[in-house]
């Protein structure tokens, strides 16, 4: 259904263009769930925003192809793109406080999606909005529909965002760090809600997060991004049980556990390179415990390790082949 091929995104800065996302490719079928994990600056959110082409056009350069239903979203005229946004592909964001318009009622904001794409009149849209609020389990929906965002709690606001996103029963929902701004107990509620809605509507979901545990719980497949590149793709249980790329491995080991007492944590040495100052060759090479001279010479390709499990690390790949 969604096929991203060699997507690269550059941003304009003071001194020219810097590359944010480099050569990202992946596919997503109908009714599937995919997680994208990475630290800040990994390009995970940039990738997601590219699918809906929500970057400021003047300061962004995108290359590659984003195929959705057989058409390339990157070459679609803006008018056609607008028809897809909210109807076929919807998105929710990290900060529900600032993602809702403070001067419009939540009913108005939810109904707007339906008024645009299904040409409902105001009364019908309002009625549908109440139904949607019910669907995202906001109690007393008929009364709440005329509330303004500031009258709701953080969790409720994120539910409103979700109601808005699913209004037209999209085929793809992109959730960009949907629970990061929320408390732990509320995070679990929102996650369960998203899972149930995915079943109910039969949509695909891309969940973007810095939290590997969260993504693994939610998604069938996980992509790990580092410094603008896809470094590993695997089914989530595989990713959790035996990550293959040294970065994924290090990331997993660096997360403290609430289930057992660990001694000293493993810490990946060094720091994430800034965009525009990425090293030659493999981006992770300066921090990598497996680094070989060849790693710093040329950027390594993303290669299949086993069916459905891809990594961007020739060193690990070679080691696997000799042992396996």
């Amino acid at each position, binding site marked *: 259904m969604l096929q991203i091929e060699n997507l690269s995104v550059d941003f304009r800065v003071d001194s020219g263009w810097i590359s944010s996302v480099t050569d990202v490719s992946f596919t997503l079928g109908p009714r599937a769930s995919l997680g994208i994990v990475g630290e800040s600056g990994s390009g995970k959110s940039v990738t997601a925003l590219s699918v*809906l082409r*929500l970057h400021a056009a003047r300061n962004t350069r995108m290359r590659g192809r984003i195929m959705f239903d057989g058409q390339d979203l990157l070459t679609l005229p803006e008018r056609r793109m607008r028809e897809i946004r*909210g109807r076929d592909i919807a998105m929710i*964001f990290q900060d529900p406080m*600032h993602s809702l318009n*403070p*001067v419009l009622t939540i009913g108005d904001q939810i109904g707007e999606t339906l008024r645009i794409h299904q040409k409902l009149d105001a009364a019908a849209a309002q009625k549908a909005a109440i139904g949607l609020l019910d669907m995202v389990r906001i109690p007393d929906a008929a009364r709440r529909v005329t509330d303004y965002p500031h009258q709701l709690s953080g969790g409720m606001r994120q539910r409103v*965002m979700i109601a808005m996103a699913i209004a037209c029963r999209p085929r793809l929902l992109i959730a960009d760090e949907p629970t990061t701004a929320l408390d732990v107990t509320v995070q679990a509620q929102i996650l369960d809600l998203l899972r149930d809605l995915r079943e109910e509507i039969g949509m695909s979901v891309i969940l973007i997060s810095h939290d590997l545990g969260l993504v693994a719980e939610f998604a069938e497949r996980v992509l790990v991004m580092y410094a603008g590149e896809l470094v590993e793709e695997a089914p989530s249980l595989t990713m959790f049980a035996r990550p293959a790329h040294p970065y994924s491995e290090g990331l997993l080991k660096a997360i403290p556990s609430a289930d057992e007492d660990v001694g000293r944590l493993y810490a990946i040495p060094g720091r994430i390179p800034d965009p525009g100052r990425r090293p030659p060759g493999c981006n992770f090479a300066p921090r990598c415990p497996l680094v070989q001279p060849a790693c710093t010479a040329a950027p390594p390709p993303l290669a299949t390790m086993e069916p459905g499990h891809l990594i961007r690390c020739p060193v690990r790949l070679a080691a696997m082949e000799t042992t396996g």
Partner: protein
Amino acid sequence: MLKLIAFRIAQAIPVMLVVAVLTFLLMHLLPGDPATIIAGDQADQASIDQIRRDLGLDRPVPVQLWHWIVNLAQGDFGRSLMLNQAVADAVKERLPVTLSLAMLAFAITLPFGIAFGVIAAVWRDTWVDSAVMILALVGVSVPNFWIAILSVILFSVTLGWLPSAGYVPLHDSFSGWLASLIQPAVVLALFQIGYLARMTRSAMLDVLDQDYIRTARAKGVAVNTIIVKHAFRNTLMQVVTVAGYILSLLIGGSVVIEQIFALPGIGRLLVQAIMARDYPVVQGTMLLLGFAFVFINILIDLIYAYVDPRVRYD
């Protein structure tokens, strides 16, 4: 809402008191003895003393202040020295002129200032933006009295389209009123249009940068709808907060403009009073204008509360 109104009015009382005290102190604590100035250079000591007694200046300052406040509370703003008239009456006569001028200029400022700002923000970094912003910058950089004189030369003297001076009351003739005020009002509005356009543009750009605009785009909302429905109302909230400042600039500017177009307004009264060293009038006019702005600011707070649901429902 009613509670809010009552609360804001209650809050205004101390401000008005401070305004009154400041006006008083301005005239009494600064160097220079009003009596000497009023009496003129040739006056002898006896007449200076007489004036001082007449004005009550021989009493201690706190007593004078007390009398001033007590009189104010009774609606007595003092008596003019040059006009042989109560200050309140003198101001009342001239108020309609200044009010007409300021309101007309305000009515011109709002649509143009906001429209230019929005246009510049929407076409950000294009030639449209540059052109509008250069015009706005010229607006806030050119002295209005100078433009007024140039305008009179062009429209009144050379073309003869508009009167160059004088005021026609509204109840005499609407067209006469408009003709007598349109030129001064437009000239007066130029600075404020520029100022408001610059403000609106930066507020609009700020709003367009917000997450909820991205949410609207993600829903597939058309650009025009985003601007009109999602961005403009939020921009307006920021613009409302400077409306009071704009009015204050307009009243200030009208002092100068009234001189050029010989409009018998408060500004003219004030300048005449200063020239004639008519201190009670200076004091009284400043005070009344000060009070007026306290109330304008209350009004703006209330409008703001109406526009912003976060305040309205608090």
